[in-house]
């Protein structure tokens, strides 16, 4: 059955050690760090593939091993190493200074993430989880600007704080089940204690993945951190880890019932709609992408919450797909930002002329995230819809709500990305944008690979990803409602596109005269250019949405700010008590002694 192989340990330990080596590499040898990183990530990918093929594995060869590879871990591990490789290649062109520290943290993150998904011991999981939080902080502050520091601090406090909650939850779990080993522990949710443990670990996974209301760090980090870091951590790794934990909780550690599934469904649906609505009016390129990342997490949670095989499979597949197209989008945003120097949407436009490869891969990724067939996003969303319908047919009357929420979110996603594409790539170029040039090979290659994978996963969905990666996790067989044959659909869609192009070429007028508009000698750009963002201003004018937006901007939904304000209240009160006068302090002590006397009197 199980094969004990040492390479599991190496898969976790080598990246961490290599990361430390990169950190302490002397200045002159900095070029070596790039090669070391490339080497290690390649090796890690190879190891993950091997794990996938050889599973199940465990290490060390004792009855309760520390590291285990089962189907879920193999899936997550493959994703983690794949994205590490992609981001490493991208970073060659993107990151110029601080190489040692950057690649060092990157490698250590890879090692810790692998450790977290391979861990069989809950304490080991928590240890790697917390370490990842601080690595996120260090990576975001690679560029020492004030906003990066503030966003990173927020991320650390939210993710690291929920880490403490997770410790509490794991302690409760230990008390219930009596062991720290994850394999073979199944806890029924009957009573306050199991629910409390479930909620605590759930909150930790929500915060890592970025679900509402613990999402507020994600848009900030997306905006202020370097794009490669954003593609690496919040977009792909954190989702992989967060949903991995969620899957562990729902599939392995706890036996779910109606209430816990409903929690997942509610949070998932709310996240989808809320985040996408906010994303519609964002001005900053990366921040907009960040809110979309939050929204996509909702789909994953929704999928797992449906509690039937196809829904869960859909959720997991969506996790993988989301990582693919999200990182592609962020890498594209990074390329744009690097050559133009700004990520404010009003300043961009018309870049398709200057950065064609970026444009094409970005287009593919946008179509994928919107759920356009035959790409991978459509497939996983379709599986999730089926899951909702399955679970609803019979018992749960709310399934209409979830379905509508998911579809509505999808619609808004399309709207948002059309706006994005227009604002950045289409339309007329602004002054700054006309100075753009296509990004280098190291940056375009990863994007192309990711876009191609999106297409492949979509067309060959049945044969490759689902059957190899996802289905083994579920264990039961997945039955689809309705018929969808990707090959047929792709052929039909390709035929339709060709037909459309043919019609355009034949029917569209050939001769047209292009003149510049008459503006009386003024600067034409002021009148000619309509930035993509302005088309959506009408949304703000709808009363309900308008108030929502103003609240979000004033950060009243931000759990981090709220708790900060509440704590500050208590602090002010206590500080007034500490007035600096000596007798006050002695009186406190005497009050303490009186309390002690009372306790002794009552209980003694």
């Amino acid at each position, binding site marked *: 059955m199980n094969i004990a192989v040492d390479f599991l340990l190496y898969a976790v330990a080598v990246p961490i050690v290599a990361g430390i080596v990169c950190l302490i590499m002397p200045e002159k040898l900095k070029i070596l760090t790039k090669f070391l990183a490339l080497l290690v990530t390649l090796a890690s990918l190879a190891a993950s593939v091997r794990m996938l093929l050889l599973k199940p594995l465990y290490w060390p060869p004792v009855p309760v091993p520390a590291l285990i590879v089962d189907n879920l871990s193999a899936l997550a591990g493959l994703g983690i190493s794949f994205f590490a490789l992609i981001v490493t290649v991208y970073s060659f062109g993107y990151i110029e200074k601080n190489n040692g520290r950057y690649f060092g943290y990157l490698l250590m993150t890879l090692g810790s993430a692998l450790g977290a998904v391979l861990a069989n011991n809950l*304490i080991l999981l*928590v*240890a*790697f*989880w*917390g*370490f990842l*939080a*601080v690595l996120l902080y260090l990576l975001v*502050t690679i560029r*020492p*600007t*004030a906003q990066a*520091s*503030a966003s*990173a*601090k927020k991320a*650390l*406090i939210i993710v*690291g*704080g929920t*880490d*403490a*909650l997770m*410790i*509490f939850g794991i*302690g*409760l779990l*230990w*008390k219930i089940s009596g062991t720290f080993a994850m394999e073979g522990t199944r806890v029924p949710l009957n009573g306050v*204690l199991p629910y*409390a443990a479930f909620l605590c670990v759930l909150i930790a996974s929500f915060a890592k993945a970025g679900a509402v209301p613990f999402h507020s760090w994600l848009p900030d980090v997306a905006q202020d951190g370097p794009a490669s870091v954003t593609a690496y951590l919040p977009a792909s790794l954190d989702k992989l880890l967060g949903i991995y934990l969620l899957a562990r909780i729902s599939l392995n550690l706890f036996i779910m019932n109606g209430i816990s599934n409903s929690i997942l469904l509610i949070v998932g649906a709310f996240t989808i709609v809320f985040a996408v609505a906010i994303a519609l009016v964002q001005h900053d390129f990366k921040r907009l992408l960040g809110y979309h990342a939050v929204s996509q997490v909702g789909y994953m949670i929704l999928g797992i919450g449906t509690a039937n095989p196809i829904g869960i499979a859909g959720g997991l597949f969506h996790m993988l797909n989301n990582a693919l197209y999200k990182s592609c989008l962020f890498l594209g945003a990074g390329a744009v930002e690097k050559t133009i120097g700004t990520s404010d949407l009003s300043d961009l436009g018309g870049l398709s002329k200057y950065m064609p490869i970026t444009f094409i891969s970005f287009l593919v990724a946008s179509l994928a995230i919107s759920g356009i067939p035959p790409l991978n996003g459509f497939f996983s969303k379709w599986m999730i819809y089926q899951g909702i319908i399955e679970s609803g047919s019979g018992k749960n009357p709310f399934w209409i709500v979830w379905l509508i929420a998911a579809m509505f979110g999808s619609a808004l996603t399309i709207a948002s990305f059309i706006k994005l594409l227009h604002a950045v790539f289409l339309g007329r170029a602004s002054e700054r944008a006309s100075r753009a040039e296509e990004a280098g090979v190291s940056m375009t290659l990863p994007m192309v690979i990711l876009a191609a994978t999106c297409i492949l996963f979509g067309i060959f969905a049945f044969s490759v990803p689902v059957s190899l990666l996802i289905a083994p996790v579920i264990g039961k067989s997945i039955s689809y409602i309705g018929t969808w044959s990707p090959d047929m659909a792709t052929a039909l869609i390709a035929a339709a596109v060709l037909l459309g192009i043919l019609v355009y070429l034949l029917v569209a007028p050939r001769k047209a005269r292009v003149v510049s508009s008459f503006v009386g000698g003024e600067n034409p750009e002021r009148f000619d250019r309509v930035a993509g963002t302005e088309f959506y201003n009408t949304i703000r004018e709808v009363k309900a949405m308008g108030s929502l937006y103003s609240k979000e901007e004033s950060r009243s939904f931000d759990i981090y700010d709220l708790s*900060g304000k509440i*704590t*500050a209240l*208590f*602090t*002010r009160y*206590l*500080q007034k008590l*500490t007035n*600096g006068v*000596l007798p*006050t*302090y*002695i009186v*406190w*002590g005497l*009050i*303490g*002694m009186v*309390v*002690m*006397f009372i*306790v*002794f009197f009552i*209980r*003694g």
Partner: protein
Amino acid sequence: MSPNLMIPYLVIVPLAAAFLIIIFGKMTRPAGAIIASIASALSFTVSLMLSFSIVKYGVLIYKVGGWMPPAGIPMIVDSYSALILLIANFIAALVTLYSVNYVKIYTDTWKYFSLLMLMMAGVNGVAVSGDIFNMFVYLEIASLATYALVAFGNEAEALEASFKYAVMSSVASTFMLIGIAFLYNYTSTLNMAYIGKFIEGNRTAKIMSFVSVLFLAGFGLKAALAPFHAWLPDAYTKSPAPIPAISSGVLIKVLGVYALTRLFFNVFGMTKPVSYILIFFAVVSMLGGGILAFGQSNIRRLLGYSSVSQIGYIILGFAIGTPLAVMGSLFHIFNHSVAKSLLFMGAGSIEKTMRTQDIKKISGVISKMPVTGYTSLIGALSICGIPPFGGFWSKLIIIFACIQAGYFGLAFIAAFVSILTLAYYFKAYAPMLFGAKESLSGALKNNRRQFLTDMPMIILAVVSAGSMLFLAPGIMNILMRLATVVIVNGTAYVSVILGSLK
């Protein structure tokens, strides 16, 4: 030489050093620093050797002057004392080395070192004392030295803080003296083992409750347990930078926590009311210290309130009393001493370079002073409970111990305070360490790197980062297990000592 002859050297060496420094310090300038460094290194070596001996022998007793207890005063070292001595002398040696460069800003540095040596003599004395009044005397010696050291720089706030500290602390000491008087009246002996034997039958007598209150108040103040904590943030604000480092790392642990637990576990016996009181005050410390630290803009005050909060964790572990909880507390004592001293030393260096203690005005420490910056980051991460640094493991153990004992609410509060700790540390340290490197008008342009300032910080950072290795089988692990056994076995201490005394 038989190992128990090493015990008095723990007190003799610092005491002799103190007086030698007074003699030679006036003659040659560097005499104070040299003698102090040698003395602290020697006492660390002695404590290290004692730890190894304890593992072999269990209990070591030295009768001062050869007089037989209960008439004579014994110096007793068991595994708990050995552990505390090891931690205390380790930190003290490093702080002394750090001080060598720091006190160059004062004249008459020999006075500083002499007082520091007196403090260490007192601390070591408390840890080895087997007699309750002897413990009190050493406690007073250490405290008096600290009052003078806090006021050393002669700045207005330092003097004010020292006065308040002295008054509050002497009130507490007087309470303790009355407590000792009542205890002597009841048991007719001052030797801790004999006291334990005497009250074995009647632990819950009314007089014992009264005496317990007095001792809890007295030692509670030394340990900076809320509501007796008010002297701590003040005393740390304007004193010379090594003083908060050694006070927070050594004094409040040995004089406060060690003495408290020694008395209440081994001599009096941990009863339910004492346990509840300690839990209550521990929770107040954790929450109060954390909430107050949130609003601080002075880096030293923030670290001071953080100490109050962490002492709450330690006392919580002891109050719960299960073996796992006690182990967690002991490990947290170690982690907190190392990390806090590191942070205070770092704060001292930052202060010297940036010329201010205000958090809002400092930024870019990591780029300007990399050694200080990175070691302070490691120290902060350790206290916040971020893996893989030491504080994570000890907090983990304490939270699990609370859950194991059934105190779910306490475990939740402990986890919540952990979040709070992370919040206020990073709220303060993130802009300080990582902010952009601005040029402050008052900041030193070139930061001179000094070996004796950097090395203690690096050593402490390495120890803090690797402290989870101390949980692995090794000398520390054995020592901690033995210490846990000593504490958990409570009043079995009495029979062990009495057996060894014969």
